[in-house]
């Protein structure tokens, strides 16, 4: 049930005790550290049905999906949008992997797939429902399966297993160092947080981030997609806006939505990964920030195996 390790160490009061813990709070992370005065959301594109899955590549281009219209677009670093793929079978969450392919939750065909930049598609796994995914710097995948209340892990060798259940998952993200996984539930006032073990198992789950803020007309936050920045801030889309948390799980503030409609997901993109891109129902926006994102594939070259 519980364990303790008594470090057989009787310290008398005149002895030396090294106090390692400072009572002072962790560094405060206010919105002013993120938002640039005078910079607001810029509309990049509109006329879509429901946009989702923003995912940045090595050049800073941002892919996104229009789920009901079965298309994936890509935004170049100047903000221009071009068609990337058609007939996407309601593909939802996207993320670029260390192999520079664009991975996606192709939920209409119950597949997880990967596209090369020339548009060629490979099926990674079949027979699963999915919503959102992350791809690690080693090429492993975590994806959420809201229909069955599970989170799956696909190893780099393509072995798949359930690593979390008893959850109604929606969005999924990792800390920049890939040691901690965070999962949203639309109706919960917190975000679930897990430790990622070396074999992809998820342990020590906790309601670490919270409480989320509510819009005055709603009893639930409607938490959806997430992104993280270099300093381990975590951003989660909600009905109220983009709620930003510091790495100790405390709300730093809520960035206003660009419009009154839905805001489903966000990511950092642009040449220096310092623009926040947001998929907001029929529209897609971006805004300049003072911080930068850190796509996991950038770690692929750094890590020594």
């Amino acid at each position, binding site marked *: *049930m*519980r*364990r*303790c*390790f*008594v*470090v057989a*160490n*009787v*310290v*008398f*009061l*005149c*002895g030396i*005790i*090294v*106090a*390692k*813990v*400072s*009572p*002072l*709070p*962790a560094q*405060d*992370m*206010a*919105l002013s550290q993120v938002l640039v005065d005078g910079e607001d959301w810029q509309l990049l594109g509109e006329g879509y049905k429901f946009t989702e899955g923003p995912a940045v590549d090595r050049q800073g281009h941002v892919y996104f999906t229009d789920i009901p219209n079965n298309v994936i677009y890509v935004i170049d670093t100047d903000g221009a949008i071009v068609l990337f793929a058609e007939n996407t079978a309601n593909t939802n969450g996207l993320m670029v992997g260390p192999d520079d392919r664009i991975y996606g939750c192709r939920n209409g065909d119950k597949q997880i797939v990967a596209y090369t930049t020339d548009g060629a598609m490979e099926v990674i796994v079949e027979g699963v429902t999915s919503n959102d995914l992350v791809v690690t710097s080693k090429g492993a995948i975590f994806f959420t399966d809201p229909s069955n209340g599970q989170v799956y892990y696909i190893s780099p060798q393509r072995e798949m297993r359930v690593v979390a259940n008893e959850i109604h998952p929606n969005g999924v993200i990792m*800390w920049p*160092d*890939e*040691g*901690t996984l965070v999962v949203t539930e639309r109706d919960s006032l917190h975000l679930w*947080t897990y*430790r*990622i*073990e*070396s074999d992809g198992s998820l*342990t*020590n*789950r*906790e*309601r*670490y981030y*919270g*409480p989320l803020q509510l819009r005055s007309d709603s009893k639930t936050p409607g938490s959806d997609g997430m992104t993280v920045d270099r300093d*381990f801030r975590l951003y989660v889309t909600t009905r109220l806006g983009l709620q930003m948390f510091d*790495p*100790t*799980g*405390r*709300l*730093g*503030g809520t960035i206003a939505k660009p419009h009154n409609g839905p805001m489903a997901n966000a990511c950092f993109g642009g040449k220096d990964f310092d623009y926040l891109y947001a998929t907001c129902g029929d529209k897609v926006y971006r805004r300049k920030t003072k911080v930068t994102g850190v796509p996991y594939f950038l770690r692929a070259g750094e*890590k020594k195996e």
Partner: protein
Amino acid sequence: MNSNRHTIHVAILGLAMLTLKANSAYAIDDYTLGPDSIVQEGVPQGTVTQGQWTSEKIFPGTVRDYWIYVPAQYNADKPACVMVFQDGGSYVNPEGQQRATVVMDNLIHKGEMPVTIGIFLSPGVVPATEPDQKPRNNRSFEYDTLSDQYAKFLLEEILPFVGESYNLTEDPDERAICGISSGGICSWTVAWEHPEAFRKVLSQIGSFTNIRGGHVYPALIRKTERKPIRVFLQEGSNDLDNLHGNWPLANQQMAAALNFAGYDYEFVMGDGAHSGKHGGAILPESLRWLWKDRVEEK
């Protein structure tokens, strides 16, 4: 208590000459430790045992340091009072701002507080899997969250464990809990959630602000039937004003609410910043006030 001059300080804020006069006599945050915080010759010293606790039930996977202080006067035939300190490493440090074990040695020796076992706890950490990854620092989650999770951790994990080795009281009026900053609101939350288990609270520069919703306590206190909690609040006029709130105002709101609701409370507003300097300097007075009912009875 040295608080009179600070009260004056606040009241005359607009009157430059008087303020100047006050400033010439007292520097801001100039608190120093008194004799009760210093080892005194002839006073028996308790022992401190250190260990590490891994939670597998309430905060799964968290690891934390603990220290158990046992006063020299402890007698295993008689249940000892209990005091739990959050951020325990800083309170137990005999060279630090608080020096709680030295203070307890001195006060217990003089009969100014009962024979009390001190349990000093660090906040939990979920260690990282790989060396280049950040551990999950659980302090804010454990201390700032408005729930009974931390109280359960004490009642279901820590107190039973310490109780295996020592004869601890089960009388809630003989159980105190203390902390600084987020540890302060944590201590209040433990008693608020479980007054049948803890009824004495010492909060130093307590974070009754909106870190995780703790700013609502003054409102809750005013509209909730009074709970049998005795609470000592220490705060400083130069404490934090940040995205989470304004600490001096939040503590004044707490004191006003406790007063309105008829609590047995003491509020000391100094001119310190967000540190343990003032709280440490008045720790002996704080403990004397908190425990006075148990001393008079004994």
